[in-house]
């Protein structure tokens, strides 16, 4: 056989065969390990379970501080995460549950504890303030409103889920 009739030389053929087989073996070895390593990327995000916090009939128009705990799973480590919500009904009767984590630098805000600014959420760290519905007061440090918890009402009980940011400033 001469090379004129064939596009692939014997040397090339052997090269491709060896590299192909070698590549296949290397891939077979590495594939499980790479999939193992990138597992956190490919995990399906489990929607957090909603947690029973309080009875709907006890919710007033005044924000009330409620603590509740969420079951968290971190690999082989399972624990309860303590969370705080300020719960009230707005003017339209809609239930709102605010996360008290200041959107400035993450301190915990409190309701109505600053005599100079009644009926506002106030952050002790840098004087950030929010209106009753959690909207940040212009001219104070926070860049966005307080996050709100997902809410669900079932059998007269209020259930809270994940806290989510909301648009606007």
């Amino acid at each position, binding site marked *: 056989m001469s090379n004129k009739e064939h596009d692939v030389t014997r040397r090339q053929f052997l090269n491709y065969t060896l590299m192909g087989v070698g590549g296949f073996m290397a891939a077979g070895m590495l594939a*499980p390990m790479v999939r*193992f*390593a990138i*597992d956190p990327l490919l995990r399906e995000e489990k929607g957090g379970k909603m947690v029973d916090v309080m009875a709907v009939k006890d919710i007033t128009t005044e924000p009330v501080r409620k603590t509740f705990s969420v079951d968290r799973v971190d690999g*082989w*480590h399972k624990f309860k995460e303590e969370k705080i919500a300020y719960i009230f009904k707005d003017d339209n009767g809609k239930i709102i549950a605010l996360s008290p984590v200041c959107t400035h630098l993450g301190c915990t805000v409190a309701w109505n504890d600053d005599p100079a600014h009644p009926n506002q959420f106030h952050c002790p760290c840098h004087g950030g303030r929010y209106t009753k519905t959690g909207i940040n007061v212009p001219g104070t440090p926070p860049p966005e409103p307080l996050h709100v918890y997902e809410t669900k009402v079932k059998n007269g009980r209020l259930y809270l889920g994940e806290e989510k940011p909301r648009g606007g400033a």
Partner: protein
Amino acid sequence: MFQKLYDWIDERLDITPLWRDLADHEVPEHVNPAYHFSAFVYCFGGLTFFTIVIQILSGMFLTMYYVPDINNAWDSVYYLQNDVAYGQIVRGMHHWGASVTIVMVFLHALRVFFTGAYKKPRELNWIVGVLLFFVILGLGFTGYLLPWDMKALFATKVGLQIAASFPIIGDWIKLLLQGSDIVGAQTLARFFAIHVFFLPALLMGLMAAHFLMIRRQGISGPL
């Protein structure tokens, strides 16, 4: 594209002779299974190296999930084996590969012994090979404790009692390995450090010496 990239690097660094030196290295007829099939016994050294590469790779990946602490070690192994994708395979590679490595080392040593390849001028390489064997046994011993189950605990207790039976300094060796008066938290941390840092570093240094020597001296002649 790869050719261009290769040429660009080669033009500057002249890397071709580096791998050509290995690729063009002639394998003598008496060690080439293509000529004499029985020459497959000369593959055991290379196969040992291959299994060690698998051990190093799978071990590196296992440490992404494993935690060397008495409260979490077992749970982290359980988690990585049962909840992480391909965990069973990656841990299986490391677990079974450990035994295969020791079998391969043993077969390689038998081949060297029965072909008389350890004789002058290759005595030093035999010595390094025996040291490698001990390092690999050490890796097996320290790795056995890491899952922190009952088998791991009691096998290590037995192993440390054997170490303690060494004349005169036995109790010191045991305490040094155990790091505490019981097989516990400090033993686990210590074995982990030995298993993933000290012994692998020693292993790689000895392997480099092993390979440089065989390259320098060439493979021993036919029987």
